[in-house]
Structures are given as structure tokens and as C-alpha cells.
């Protein structure tokens, strides 16, 4: 049901763009108005979400500590697993963002073969599949994003041409097949199937988990169709994109509707981005378990939302009642 709903949503989006351009000739809407709107929504929504998060207090020092905290000199501490200063935190964040280090430790519950005997026991076993799938997906997505800069820049920096050359190193067919296209499709398909075939994962999956997957699949699929199968006038596409980025929008002569479908799906992804789980792109920087220093024993973390409690210390109490206490013969700290 959830899967079907997400699938139908994405199909409707694609069909809307296709009919809109192919039959109703709304190139202006799908090529200029919506992309601009999508970009503004993306930028504004993203920034607003970040500021919203920045306003949330962190009540406790909840950094995850998977190693010895820095304490006495002669006890060896783990700078990475339990960072004691910003240097360690930066290193840890770097590994998290670029290599998904915490996902590397992912485990799955099941029957595990025990090391001593041949028997199987219920327990936890290492499960690297999500890490690998996620890593492949994110890197190829980033690679493809950067490669797309050839439509946005002129002159094209040689670094981008080099990336493209590397991506097409096997020189399969013409236009040359990009390896990242295959990696992206495979990994997204894997990430989707994972949600379908693992019962526990299926149970916790929401529509909001399937929509981004289908949207990205549809974007990849339309892009691949456009590049290898039906083809579009790439020069026309570049003309449109360059006109958009120089704020003098102009539609090129005839660019196939498949391009507008692709463009509209990408715009949809951008519009959806700030309101969806995709915001983990900005959110990862706000993970207290990753970005805090493991210094809970050295530095007191004051909960920012603590209101100031009016305290009445014993000293003040004694000052207030000194005479009465003296009269009753009670012992006093200060005479």
C-alpha cells in the first residue's frame, strides 16, 4: 500500500510533466517557472530548517563513546571514538559524513555461528550491506551531481571533464556509458529491495521513505533514457540552463519532452527536500552524538533550558535566623 502510493505519486509527477509539455506545450512552466520556484523553496526551506534546528537546545552531553575517554595521563585514550577536543570531533564528523563510519558498525540480529562449536546461537552479526549500499548510492549521486555542472558552467573546468573521462573509462558505446549511472541504479534498487524483503525494515518503512527512493529512481531512469535511448539536443538543454542561471530565461527551440520530465522530477526533489528526511544532508551536522566532545567528566554540561531556581543556602538561612537559633541554643556555623 505504502509502496504503491509512493509509486503512483511519482508516476503522476512524471506523467504531468510529459503531458504538460508534449500536448499542452507548457514548456515555459516546466522549463522556467517551476525550476526557479523549486530552487527558491529549496534554498529558503533548507536555511529555515537549519536555523530552526540551531534554536533547539541540547540538554545533555550525549556523545557516543565507543572508546576510552581522556582522563589520567597514563591511561591511553581514544581520540577518535571518544574525542576530547575539537580536533577529534572534526575527524569524527569527517569520517561520518564521507564514509558513514557509524553505519559500518551496523549489526543484524539472527542466528550466529559461535566461534567455538559448530552450533548456531541467537545473537548479533555484522551487517555491512546497508553501509555499502548507502555509500555507493551517495557517492555516485554526488559524482553525478558534480558531473552535471557541465550544463551550468562555461567554460567547463577541466576537473569536470576529467571526472567525466574517468566515469566513461571503459568507452562502452556512444554516447559513452557512465559507470556511476549503473552504480546509482544498482544501489538505489538495493536500498529499495531492502525495505521490501526484510520484514522488520518493511514494517518501519513509511511512505516518506519510499517517495525519495522512487523519485530518485525515476530521475535516474529518465536521465538514462534521455542519454542513451531517446536522446535530446544537449546543446539546447545547455542553452536553457545557462539562460536560467544568468536570469534571462529563454526556451530553446525543440528539446524532447523526456528532458522536461527529468527536469520536473529534479525540481520536485528540490521542492520536497527541506520537508523530508532528505534534510539529513544538513541534519548530520546537528547530530549531538557525533558533534559533541566526550568531555562529560571534565566539563559540566549545563542544560540550557534549565530555568534559574531560587536557592536559599544554609548560610543565608543561618543569617536570617541567627538570633532565634542562638536563643534556642542551637549550634551555629558562624558565631
Amino acid at each position, binding site marked *: 500500500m505504502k509502496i504503491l502510493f509512493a509509486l503512483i505519486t511519482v508516476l503522476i509527477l512524471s506523467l504531468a510533466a510529459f503531458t504538460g509539455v508534449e500536448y499542452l506545450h507548457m514548456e515555459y512552466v516546466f522549463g522556467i517557472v517551476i525550476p526557479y520556484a523549486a530552487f527558491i523553496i529549496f534554498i529558503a526551506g533548507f536555511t529555515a530548517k537549519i536555523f530552526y534546528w540551531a534554536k533547539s537546545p541540547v540538554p545533555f552531553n550525549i556523545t557516543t563513546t565507543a572508546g576510552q575517554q581522556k582522563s589520567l595521563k597514563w591511561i591511553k585514550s581514544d581520540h577518535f571514538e571518544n574525542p576530547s577536543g575539537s580536533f577529534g570531533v572534526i575527524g569524527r564528523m569527517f569520517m561520518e559524513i564521507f564514509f558513514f563510519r557509524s553505519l559500518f558498525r551496523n549489526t543484524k540480529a539472527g542466528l550466529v555461528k559461535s566461534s567455538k562449536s559448530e552450533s548456531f546461537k541467537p545473537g548479533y552479526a555484522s551487517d555491512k550491506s546497508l553501509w555499502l549500499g548507502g555509500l555507493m548510492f551517495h557517492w555516485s549521486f554526488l559524482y553525478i551531481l558534480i558531473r552535471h555542472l*557541465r550544463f551550468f558552467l562555461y567554460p567547463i573546468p577541466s576537473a569536470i571533464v576529467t571526472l567525466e573521462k574517468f566515469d566513461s573509462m571503459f568507452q562502452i558505446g556512444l554516447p559513452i556509458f557512465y559507470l556511476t549511472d549503473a552504480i546509482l541504479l544498482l544501489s538505489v534498487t538495493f536500498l529499495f529491495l531492502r525495505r521490501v524483503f526484510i520484514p522488520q525494515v518493511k514494517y518501519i518503512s513509511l511512505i516518506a521513505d519510499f517517495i525519495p527512493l522512487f523519485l530518485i529512481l525515476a530521475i535516474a531512469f529518465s536521465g538514462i533514457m534521455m542519454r542513451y535511448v531517446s536522446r535530446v539536443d544537449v546543446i539546447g538543454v*545547455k542553452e536553457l540552463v545557462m539562460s536560467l542561471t544568468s536570469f534571462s530565461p529563454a526556451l530553446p527551440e525543440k528539446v524532447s519532452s523526456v528532458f522536461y520530465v527529468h527536469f520536473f522530477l529534479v525540481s520536485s526533489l528540490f521542492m520536497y527536500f527541506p520537508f523530508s528526511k532528505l534534510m539529513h544532508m544538513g541534519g548530520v551536522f546537528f547530530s549531538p552524538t557525533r558533534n559533541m566532545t566526550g568531555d562529560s567528566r571534565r566539563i559540566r554540561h549545563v542544560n540550557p533550558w534549565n530555568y534559574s531556581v531560587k536557592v536559599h543556602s544554609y548560610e543565608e538561612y543561618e543569617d536570617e535566623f541567627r538570633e532565634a537559633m542562638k536563643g534556642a541554643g542551637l549550634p551555629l556555623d558562624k558565631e
Partner: protein
Amino acid sequence: MFKMYSKIKVFTGVFIFLALATFPFWNKVFIVSKTNYEMPDANIKPALAFARENGFSGCIEDRAFMRAKHMKLLNHWRNEVVRENKKTYINSKGEHFNKSLTGTCLKCHSNKEEFCDSCHTSAGVKPYCFDCHITGIQNTNQLNSKAEAIHEIK
């Protein structure tokens, strides 16, 4: 009033995000200092003149097809010639062509730099074909039989 935590870090982060996301817009102003992108002007005049002189109706296929799909056509030609020894291409108008990169395409489009490369630079592609298919040599020999070379002469 809202309180914001880690102000400096957050503002730096947001600034970097905005700078990266809007890069395609501002690079034209601050880096390339050229706000107008000029469409590559693939010079088709020599090809037009050559086609008219020698009785061709135009390119191999119509212009929209060529713009979008010429690389697919070339791939098709390459495979058919090299693997299946089929050397004649008959287009949708019934005209015959010799399936050859330098022998056909570059006979009409003898100005490779002005023609092919102008588009390719703009799109950021560098076809590796010309590592082997040398253009200069093909163009200088048999100048007067260029038209025949295009028609399949086997």
C-alpha cells in the same frame, strides 16, 4: 526572542551551503565575468555548400535528428562496418552513404574545429575517435573524388 546555539558555526555552515548551492549563478559574475553564454555556432556553411554542389539534400538525416543522435548513428556505423562488414547506409530519403567517419562526415563537414568541436567544447565532451581517425590525411588525398567517396563505391 529566540536563542540560537553555536551561532558562528551555524552561520558559517549556512554560508557555505548557500555559496555552493548558488554557485552556477554567481560564478558568471565573479569568476568568469561573463554573464552571457553564447550558443556554439557550429558553422554549417561549408557543408551546405558542398551538399548543394554535389546533389545531397542535406545531412545524413534531418537536422534535429543529427543534433541529438549523431553519436548513436556513428556508433551504429562503426559496429556495422567493423563487425558485420555492412558499409552502405541508406537514409530515410533513400540516399546512399558510405559508413565512414572521416570518409563521409568529415568530407562535408571538412571544418572539424569550427563544426564538431565548437559544440563539443560547449557540452564538455571530447570524442576519442580522432586519436586514431586522422582527419588531415583523409582530407588532402583525392580531393576531387570526395563526393564519390561519400556515395558508397564498392
